[in-house]
C-alpha cells in the first residue's frame, strides 16, 4: 500500500517537474492513470495550460487577413466534461473547482462559473487565483452582493480589491486600512492603499506611501506606473527619471516599466518617443488600460487626432468606465472643431467621475465655444466644477465672467467675491484679482453701496496700471456723490 503511494508520489513528482519545465503535455501524459486528487488537478491544469499555449501560438500562426484568428483552447471541451463528472460525483477538491470555474468562464457560462468559484473559495480561501477569477466575473455591485461567501479574512482582501475595481474607492480604502492593522508589513496592502488614494486624487499621500514602499521593496515594478503618474502630475522630473532608471534595471520588459518611461518622455515633451514606449507596453499587454489612455494623450499632444481618438476608444472598449479616456475623446473632438460631438463624450466622462472639476470645466468650455455658445449650460457645468474642489480656480472666475456677459451683475458679483476670497486664501495675485476688484468696485458703486466700493477701490490702489487710475477716479466720484447734496448747495449758492 505504502509502496503504491510512493510510486504514485513519484509519478506526481515527475509530472510536477515536467510541469515546472513547462512541458505540459508531458506532465499530463505521466499522470494519465493517476486518480489522486492532486494528480488529477495537476493533469487537468497541465492540459489546460497546454491548450492555452497552443492557442496563443495559433493566434499568431493563423492571423488571417481579417486580423485575428478564431483560435480556441481545444482542451476546454474535454476538460469541462471531465471536471463536470468529477463535480457531480463530489470527488473534486477546491483546486479542481477553481479549474472548473476557469474552464466554465472561458466557455462563457458565467453563472455556473461564479457558483463553482464561490464553492472553491469557500472551501479553500487561500487561493488568490480563484478570488481574482471570481472578481473578473463580478462586474456590478448587484452581482457582488448576490455572492454567498463565507467569512474569512481573505474575503476582506477580495472585497477591497473588487471595490476598487467598481470605483468604490472610499469603501476599498477603509477595507485596506483595516487589513493593514492585521498585516502590518504587507507591501501589497500598502500599494493598494496608494492606488486607492490615487483614485481619490490624494497625490501627496500617495507619493509618501510609494517612497516608503520602495524603501522596503526596492525592486518592485508592480504598481509603479501609478507612482509614475503621481510624479508626472507633480512634474518631478528627476524623481521620475530615477524611477524609470530603476525599473528598467529591474525588468525592461514589463508593461509597467515601459509605461513609466513613456511618462517620463511625455513629461520631457518628447511625445514621439513616449508613444514608442507606450506602444511597447501595449505589445506586452494589449489590455493595459492606462497605456492606451496615456498614448491617446500623447497623440493629442502631437496633434494626430485620429490616432488619439483610436487609442482612447480602445481604452474605453476595454473598460467603459474609464473616465479619462472618455474625457480624452471629448478633447480630441473639440480640437477638431466639433464641440457638439465632443459633448457626448464629456457627458460620459462626467457621468463616471462626477467629482472631478477638470471634466466639468472641459465640458463647460465646450458649451462656451463660439460654435455652440450655450452659456446657460456652461454656467451649470462651471457650478458643478466649483462645487468639487476646483484646484486651478478656473470655474469661479469663468462663472463670474459669464454672468457678467449675460448681464446678471448680482450673480457676477457673488462669484467675483468668492473668487476673490479664494485668491486671498491662497495668496495668489494676478490679472484675475485686479479684474475682480475692479468689477466689484464699480458694481457696488452703481448699487450705491459706497462703503464696500471704497474698500475695493482702495485695494486697487495697491496695483499699478490703468486700473489704479480708474480706481482713483471712482473714489473721487464717490466722494462727490456721498457729499453730493452739500457740494451741490455750495455750487448753487456761490455765484
Amino acid at each position, binding site marked *: 500500500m505504502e509502496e503504491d503511494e510512493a510510486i504514485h508520489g513519484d509519478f506526481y513528482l515527475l509530472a510536477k517537474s515536467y510541469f515546472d519545465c513547462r512541458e505540459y503535455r508531458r506532465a499530463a501524459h505521466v499522470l494519465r492513470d493517476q486518480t489522486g486528487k492532486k494528480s488529477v488537478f495537476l493533469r487537468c491544469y497541465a492540459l489546460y495550460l497546454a491548450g492555452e499555449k497552443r492557442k496563443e*501560438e*495559433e493566434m499568431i*500562426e*493563423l492571423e*488571417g*487577413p*481579417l*486580423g*485575428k*484568428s*478564431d*483560435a*480556441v483552447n481545444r482542451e476546454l471541451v474535454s476538460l469541462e466534461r471531465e471536471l463536470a463528472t468529477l463535480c457531480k460525483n463530489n470527488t473534486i477538491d477546491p483546486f479542481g473547482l477553481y479549474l472548473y470555474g476557469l474552464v466554465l468562464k472561458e466557455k462563457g457560462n458565467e453563472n455556473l462559473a461564479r457558483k463553482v468559484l464561490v464553492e472553491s473559495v469557500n472551501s479553500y480561501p487561500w487561493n488568490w487565483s480563484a478570488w481574482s477569477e471570481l472578481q473578473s466575473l463580478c462586474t456590478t455591485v448587484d452581482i457582488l452582493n448576490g455572492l454567498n461567501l463565507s467569512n474569512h479574512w481573505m474575503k476582506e482582501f477580495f472585497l477591497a480589491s473588487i471595490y476598487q475595481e467598481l470605483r468604490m474607492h472610499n469603501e476599498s480604502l477603509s477595507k485596506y486600512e483595516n487589513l493593514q492593522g492585521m498585516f502590518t508589513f504587507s507591501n501589497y496592502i500598502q500599494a493598494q492603499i496608494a492606488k486607492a488614494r490615487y483614485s481619490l486624487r490624494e497625490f501627496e499621500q500617495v507619493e509618501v506611501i510609494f517612497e516608503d514602499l520602495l524603501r522596503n521593496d526596492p525592486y518592485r515594478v508592480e504598481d509603479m506606473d501609478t507612482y509614475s503618474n503621481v510624479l508626472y502630475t507633480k512634474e518631478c522630473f528627476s524623481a521620475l527619471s530615477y524611477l524609470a532608471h530603476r525599473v528598467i534595471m529591474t525588468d525592461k520588459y514589463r508593461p509597467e516599466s515601459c509605461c513609466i518611461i513613456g511618462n517620463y518622455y511625455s513629461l520631457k515633451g518628447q511625445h514621439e518617443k513616449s508613444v514608442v514606449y507606450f506602444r511597447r507596453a501595449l505589445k506586452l499587454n494589449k489590455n493595459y488600460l492606462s497605456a492606451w489612455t496615456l498614448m491617446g494623450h500623447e*497623440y493629442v499632444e502631437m496633434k*494626430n*487626432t*485620429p*490616432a488619439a*481618438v*483610436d*487609442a*482612447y*476608444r480602445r481604452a474605453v*472598449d476595454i473598460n467603459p468606465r474609464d473616465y479619462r479616456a472618455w474625457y480624452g*475623446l471629448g478633447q480630441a*473632438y473639440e480640437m*477638431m*472643431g*466639433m*464641440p*457638439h*460631438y465632443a459633448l*457626448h*463624450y464629456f457627458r460620459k466622462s462626467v457621468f463616471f467621475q462626477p467629482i472631478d472639476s477638470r471634466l466639468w470645466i472641459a465640458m463647460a468650455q465646450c458649451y462656451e465655444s463660439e*460654435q*455652440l*455658445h450655450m452659456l446657460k449650460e456652461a454656467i451649470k457645468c462651471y457650478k458643478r466644477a466649483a462645487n468639487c474642489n476646483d484646484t486651478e480656480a478656473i470655474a469661479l472666475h469663468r462663472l463670474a465672467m459669464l454672468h457678467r456677459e449675460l448681464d446678471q451683475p448680482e450673480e457676477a458679483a457673488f462669484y467675483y467675491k468668492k473668487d476673490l476670497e479664494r485668491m486671498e486664501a491662497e495668496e495668489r495675485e494676478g490679472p484675475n484679482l485686479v479684474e475682480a476688484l475692479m468689477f466689484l468696485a464699480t458694481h457696488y458703486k452703481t448699487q450705491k453701496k459706497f462703503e464696500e466700493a471704497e474698500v475695493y477701490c482702495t485695494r486697487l490702489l495697491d496695483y499699478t496700471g490703468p486700473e489704479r487710475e480708474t480706481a482713483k477716479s471712482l473714489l473721487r466720484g464717490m466722494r462727490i456723490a456721498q457729499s453730493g447734496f452739500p457740494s451741490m448747495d455750495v455750487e448753487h449758492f456761490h455765484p
Partner: protein
Amino acid sequence: MAGVVKAPGAFAITPHKVSVCILVNIYASPSQISVPFPFSSVSQHNRLGLYLLALTKSCDDILEPKLDQLINQLREIGGLLDHWLTDHVTSRLSSLSSPDDLFNFFNELRETLGGPDSGVMEDDQVILDPNSNLGMFLRRCILAFNLLTFEGICHLLTNIGIYCKEAISSCSSYELRRVDDSGNDFESLSEDENMDLNLVFKKINEEMEARKRATEQVSFHLHLPKELSTLVEDIEVSADPKSEHNDKGRESSSYASGELLRDVDPNGGVFLRTNWQIQGYLMEQADAIEKHGSSFTLNAFELTLRQLQKLAPELHRVHFLRYLNNLYHDDYFSALENLLRYFDYSAGTEGFDFVPPAGCNSFGRYEIALLCLGMMHFHFGHPKKALEVLTEAVRVSQQHSNDTCLAYTLAAMCNLLSEIGFSTTSGILGSPFSPMISVGTSLSVQQQLFVLLKGSLKRAESLKLKQLVAANHLAMAKFDLTHVQRPLLSFGPKTSMKLRTCPIIVCKELRSGYHLISEFCCEGSTMTADGAFSTAWLKNLQKPMGSLVLSQDNGSRNNYNPFLFFTQPSSIPGSVMQLVGSSYLHRATAWEIYGSAPLARANALVYATCFADASSSSDAALVHVKLIQHLAVFKGYKEAFAALKTAEEKFLCVSKSRILIMKLQLLHERALHRGHLKLAQQVCDELGVLASSVTAVDMELKTEASLRHARTLLAAKQFSQAAAVAHSLFCMCYKFNLQVESATVLLLLAEIHMKSGNAVVGLPYALASLSYCQTFNLDLLRASATLTLAELWLSLGSNHAKTALTLLHGAFPMILGHGGLELCARAYITEAKCYLSDPSFSVSKNPELVLDPLRQAADELQALEHHELMAEAFYLMAIVFDKLGQPEQREEAACSFKNHVMSLDHPHDVEDPIQSDTLLNA
C-alpha cells in the same frame, strides 16, 4: 493607428481550392490525346471545363462549399463519370496525410501549366494556358501555397482532414434535380472539336451566360445553397402571403446568421475570408437592413456581427452594421454607441467606398460621423438635436472642404425640414449659428428650406452626384407641391394670380429624376464598385417577377412583368431603383393632391409592381396605404378592409406604422357613416394618441386627428364645439403654413356652419377654401368646395336654386371623373334637391331628371353604408314618388328611409373582427 486595413484581396489557400485544383488537374492532365483518359467524349470534357470555370470564378466569394456540396454538384455535372470524379477527388484529398504530400501535390500542379514559351505545341495536347482563367487560378493557388509558412501548411493539412471528415459523416446521398437543358448546350459545343482551348473558353463564357438565363440551377454562385438564395428573395415575392409572410423575419435571420456562423464555426472547417469578401458581405447586409427595416431580426444578426467582430477586430465596418441594425430596431443607446465607436475607430476612412481625397488630409472624415449622427437623431425623432448636429456637420465639412459631404448634409437638412414640418424648427434656423447665415433671420422656415434646397441642388449638380441630384429634384417637387414659391408676405386677392403653385414645375422636377436611371443604364460599368457582389441582376433573373400587390383575388396571378426587360441588362443599384421608385410615389401623391384619382392609382400601382423589391418597407407600406385608401373611396369598405388584411400580413412587424394609422382612419370613416359615434370618437382618440407620441410631433398626423375629431363632433350635431375645434385647427395650420390642410379645414368649417343652419356664415369659409384650392391646384377639393358652396346657396332659399345648380354643373365633370363614391352621391343628391326646390321645375313633367341621380346616389352609398345620406336620398325619392302619385314605390322608398334612419339612431353592433381587435391592440 486609425483605420488599419489589411491588404485586401488576400488569396488564401483552402481545402476547397485544393479540391478545385485536383479537378483542374483531371481536366487538363498532361496527356497526348485530345480527350484525356477518363472522359469519353469532348462534350463531357467541356462540361467539366464549364463547371470548373464557374468554380474558379466564385472562389472569391464569401462562402465556400463543403466537400459534400461539391460532390453533389459533381454528380450533376459529371454524368456517367461522377463516381470516378468524386472517388478521385476524395481519394486524392485523403491521400494528403503529411506536409510533404502537399508539396508534391503542388509541384504536380505546376506541370499542368504550360510555360509561356513551351515551344512546340502538339495539336492534340491539352495544356493550360497560364494566362487563361483556370491557369491563373492554378498559379494563384501555387503562389499562395508557396507563401505559406510551415505552420500554415500544417493548418491547411488539418483543415483538409476536417473537410474530408465532414463530407463522410454527412449523409450525401440525396439527389439533385437535373438541369434538363444543360445537355443541349454542350451538344452544340461538341461540333467544333479541334478548337484551341482558349477559344473554347471564350465560347464557354458565352454559353454560360446563355445557360444562366435559361436555367435557375447553375450560376456562378454555385456554392450558395439554393434554399438560401431563394429565401432572401422569397421574403418579398412570396407566392402565398398568408402562410409565408408571418415568419419572414425568422427566415431572413436564418440567412443572416446561419450562414456566417457556419462560416466561422471553429470546428466546422475554418475558411477565413478576405477583407474584401467580408466587406462585400457587410454591404449586402446593410442594404438588406435598410430594405427590410425592422423585419430584419435584431438578435440573430447582432450575434453574427459579434462573432465577426471577434474574428476581425480591425474590421470596424462591423460597428457600422451594428449601428444600422440597432437603428432599425429603435435601440437608441446601442445605435449611438456603435455609431460613435465606428467613427472613433475608422475616422470614416474605411471600406470600399472610401476614396482618399485628392488633398489627402489626414484628419479623418469625422464630418461624415456628424452627418450620420444627425440622420440618426432625425430617425429617432429628435429634429432639434439633429439640426444642431447637422449644422456642425456643415461647418466641419466646410472646414475640411469636403464638398460631397456638404452636399449630402444640406440634402439631409432639407429632408429634415420638410419631413418634420415646421412646428419645432423655428428658432433654430433663425439663430445666428445657422449654416445659412446669409439668409438672415427674417425669412420663414419655408423660405429657408427653399434656399437650402436650391443650394443643395446646385452643389450636387456641380459635384456630379447623380443620386443626390435626383433626390434633390424629388425634394424640390415635394416643396413645389405644397408651397407657393414666392414670398407669402403679401398674400391677398390682388396678387393671387402670381401665387399659384405650378403643377408643371412639379412635373418637371419629378421628371428630371429619370435622367438618373438612364444614365445608370448607359454607363453601368461605373457602378461596379461592389464588383463581384453586385449580383442583383442575377437574382432578378431567377426571381418570379410580378407579384400582384393586393391580390385578395387568388385567381389571376400574372407573371408578366413590364419592368423585367428594363432591369435585365444592366445592374442598376438598389439605391437608384429606390430613388426612381420614390419619384413614382411622389407622382402618386401629387396626383392625389391635384385630384386625379386614376393617375394617382396608376402611379401607385407602378410603384408597387415594379419597385417593390427595391423599396424600403416603409415606402412599400405607404404605397399600400394609398391603394387601400383608393379602394375605400371608390369601392367601399368591404374591399378596402379585405385589402387591408393582406397588407397587414405583409407588414406585420411594423408596429406604429402607416398601416395602423390608415386602419384607424378607415374605421373612423366607416363608424361615422354607419353612425357609430361612440366608436368613431374612440378611434379618433386613438389617432390622437398616435399623434402626440413621444417621438417628435408629426404635424400631418396631428392635423388629421383633430380634423377627425371635428368631424365626429359634427356628426354628433355638436356644432359649436365642432366649429371651435375646426377653428383652432385652422389657426394651427395657418401658423405652420400647412396650406393644403387649411383648405380642407375651411371647407369643413363651411360644412359645419351649413349643417348648423348658418348658411350665411358658411359662405365665406367655402369661398376662402375655394381660393386656397385654386392657389394650390387642388382640383378635386375645389370641386368638393364648389359642391358645398352650391349646398350653401341652396339652403339660403329656393330662389338661389338656379345659382346652386349652375355651380354644381360646373363641378360635375371633376366630381364624376375623379370623385369618390361619397362625393358623387352628395353631388347627385344636391342636384336633385336643386331641381326639387326650383319653383319653375315640375316633377311630374320630368321625373327622371330627379329620380335618376337619386337612384345613382343610393346605389353608390350602399357600398359606403352611409346611412345619413342614404336616408336623405330615399326621403327625396319618397317625396318625388308621392308627387308622381306612385304610392307603392313611395312606400318602398319610405320604408328604406325608415330603415336607414333607424340604423343611424340605433347603431346595432355588427360582428366586426377588425375593429374589435384594433381596440384590443390599442
